[in-house]
């Protein structure tokens, strides 16, 4: 598997099909992995792929909008690429996607590999990349399924419990904006969270502002979040952000039968409408 990736990367760099391949290399704990940018064919042996390769590298493509780039991508990451293609941020001809079949990775932290899967993998059924030029691994034809038991659990709480649950989490937020910075779908030149005029979110790192930030961040990703789970993974204070994102994912699927990043041809739900939409808005 790793050899396949290295050989393809080498070929791409040698033939100058791309001038950089984004992949994974071992991290400094000699246990987990980290993103790496390979520019020279001689460097391809740094590339690895294993169960610790958690990062969604499609985030990096935004910085390389107009440069021919190769990328190693898991199925969830390829959905990110599709999202960016759909939103006209990338040009397909600039990309060479080395898709990797994935049946889930491990929950990792620096110096630590846990025996369980991260949330995103527990509920994921997309095991084959949705877009790729070169596939590593045997494609899985299993039909994707959906499980939102974690969301239903929160939906079933009483309003007061729910409010308390989220206060507990959001009050802890230090607004490092790591969730935004790591997100493949967050690429505004100036985020509404940084805007001064009007001041949507005050700089005060306090419950009210934290609530606005977390609500609107998620809502800006409604029908766009591709469930790579990076925001939750990197959150330094462990806010369960996937519980926020997946609520929107669930409702988007239910209301509009739409899953972001699966097919670039389908018009996303907020770019269109149906006259006969009912959507439980009291008609």
């Amino acid at each position, binding site marked *: 598997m790793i050899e396949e990736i290295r050989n393809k990367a080498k070929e791409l760099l040698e033939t100058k099909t791309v001038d950089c391949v984004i992949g994974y290399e071992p991290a400094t704990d000699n246990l987990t992995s980290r993103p790496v940018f390979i520019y020279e064919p001689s460097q391809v042996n740094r590339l690895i792929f294993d169960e610790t390769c958690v990062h969604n590298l499609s985030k990096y493509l935004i910085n390389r909008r107009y440069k021919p780039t190769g990328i190693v991508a898991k199925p969830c990451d390829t959905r990110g690429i599709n999202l960016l293609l759909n939103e006209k*941020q990338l040009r397909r001809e600039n990309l060479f996607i080395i898709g990797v079949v994935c049946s889930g990775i491990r929950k990792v932290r620096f110096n630590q590999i846990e025996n369980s899967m991260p949330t995103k993998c527990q509920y994921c059924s997309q095991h084959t990349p949705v877009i790729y030029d070169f596939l590593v691994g045997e494609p899985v034809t299993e039909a994707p399924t959906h499980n939102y038991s974690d969301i239903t659990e929160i939906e079933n709480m009483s309003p007061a419990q729910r409010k308390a649950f989220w206060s507990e989490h959001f009050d802890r937020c230090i607004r490092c904006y790591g969730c935004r910075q790591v997100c493949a779908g967050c690429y*505004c030149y100036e985020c509404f969270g940084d805007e001064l005029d*009007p001041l949507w979110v005050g700089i005060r790192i306090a419950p009210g502002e934290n609530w606005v930030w977390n609500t609107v961040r998620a809502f800006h990703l409604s029908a766009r979040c591709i469930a790579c789970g990076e925001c939750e993974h990197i959150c330094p204070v462990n806010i369960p952000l996937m519980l926020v994102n997946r609520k929107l994912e669930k409702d988007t699927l239910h209301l509009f039968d739409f899953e972001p990043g699966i097919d670039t041809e389908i018009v996303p739900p907020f770019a269109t409408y149906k006259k006969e939409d009912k959507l439980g808005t009291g008609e």
Partner: protein
Amino acid sequence: MARVGVFVCHCGTNIAGVVNIPEVLEAAEKMPMVVSATDNKYSCSEPGQASIREAIIENNLNRVIVAACSPRMHEITFRRALASAGLNPYLLEMANIREQCSWVHSDNKEIATNKAIEIIKMAVAKVIRHEPLYPRQVGITKRALVIGGGITGIQTALDIANAGYGVVLVEREPSIGGRMAQLDKTFPTLDCSACILTPKMVDLSQHPKIKLMTYAEVKKVTGFIGNFEVEILHKAKKVDHLKCIGCGICWQKCPEKVPSEFDLGLGKRTAIYIPFAQAVPPKPVIDLSHCRYTKYLTWVATGQEGKKPPECRICEKLCPTAAIAWDQEEQLFTEKFGTIVVATGYQTYDYSHYKEYGSRDFADVITGLQLERLMSASGPTGGEVTRLSDGSHPKTVAFVCCVGSRDQQRGRPYCSKVCCMYTAKQAIMLKEHDPEVQCYIFYIDVRAGGKDFEEFYLRAIDEAGVIYIKGRPSKIYQDGKKLIVLGEDTLMGRPVEIPVDLVVLATGMEPSAGADELARNLNISYDTYNFMVEAHPKLRPVETHTDGIFVAGACVGPRDIPECVAQGSAAAAKVAALFSQDTLTTEPLIAVVNQARCIGCLLCVTICPFKAVDYQTTQDGRLIAATNESLCKGCGLCIAACRPKAIDLRGFTNQQILDEVAGLWL
């Protein structure tokens, strides 16, 4: 620094009778940036406006709040007052303390007063963020495009041209005339359709202000009112119409005979043809899909397989002016127009979905329009109504109304409006042709709402002896030489079974093929049946939601000839009114893009109902949205959709609305 003046109106006792004005003034004075707060008995009166004017000048105000009635009532009035004081009129904000306060809270004066104060507070917070705005003037290309050369388009073009403005009429068929040219007689007057139509067609072709483009289609439309750019595709006629004198030798001698579209397959035409004798222009085109020489060329080009077709070229040999132009290709031209009138008309419903009526399997089941061709003296049978199966003259004829109309199962729930009258007309005409004919008309309701229509319907019963049977037939089938029509006479409550010689299906109207595509190109709305949607069905019947584009005739919905003509003239009047101005003023309350923030996801382009957002590519390859000030209507849909907040709506900016909300808690 904003200097806000607050003017509270008593509106007689309408406001002052409920709201405690002194208390409001006292509170208003303390609001941020408020320099003066005064009251008026009637702000909208001339003295009231004068006092506002004076206060603006005296206190050097640069923002004005008028706390009075609804802005829907007097916003324009007070904007003028600001302008007369030398202030930009858009620096006004109205606080609605009458309709939305004093009138609805007259039961509690204290609450009403508090609410009035808060309403003013919100307005102050918003007005501080107001900027001067300036309407823009754009020039007008005083030339109209009319799409469709039926009776509606002809009328429109003539009326615009007679008002002195240039017109281009585009028709996709080789001749203008449309559906009306196919008709024999018109109801209820029974005057000859061709006799009243063809003079207009000739007028049009000879009008100095009208440029006729037949065998051409509108491909792409960009721009906006006063300044449209339209790409028109001229299909290859293969005949040089400048040389052609329309002598007719070519179409008389052409050996290739094909079913005539104009005669709905009942007659033949040649491969080089004019659709009908009175066609305008009276010059032919070559139908390449049937031309023998073209087939020969294809045979040569594809490697000479199979039997060699004849090389023909008879038309070319016989043409006295050498007008046959084999090298003519289709061409795309871009023309500029100030307005566009859509008059693409209708086609009749294809009844092949009606399997119970044989879906075209029975030769002697024909449509109403086919019967028109059979009855027409210039038609394929020279006016003889005969059966297609054996050429005999039918003695019993059944008409079936509402085929493809008023039928929800077929997705055609609407009434086609003209069928009741045209079946009556055809029944009367058949009786006139042959007094032995007995006609039966199966109907759901006879709809005879129109001048002389009811009388005409009665005439069919009384004079032509037509038997009307209320009920939609359930089945038509062949039994020997006869057709059996099964149905129910719902008035009698009995099944009926009538053997007839000929069945005429009164097929309904539907928009011409391609109407939806054209509507999308023009960015005007169309309904589920592809009929164009007017801006308002009653008050703006020939306008669309896209300024400068008008609709007329049967492309909007089923219409009869007089209605089409009236609509054509109405659209022409709208066009002439527009062209009587030299420039157009555009509203400044529109969306503007902050290009530095735009991420080029182009959601706004997709979402804009008016195609007012387009995009540009920057030098470094970024896509950036750009709004068109003339197309934008200021709905703000794109702004709410824009994640990076790169678009904003003048007059209702994010900052303004947010401050208005926050004003409540200031």
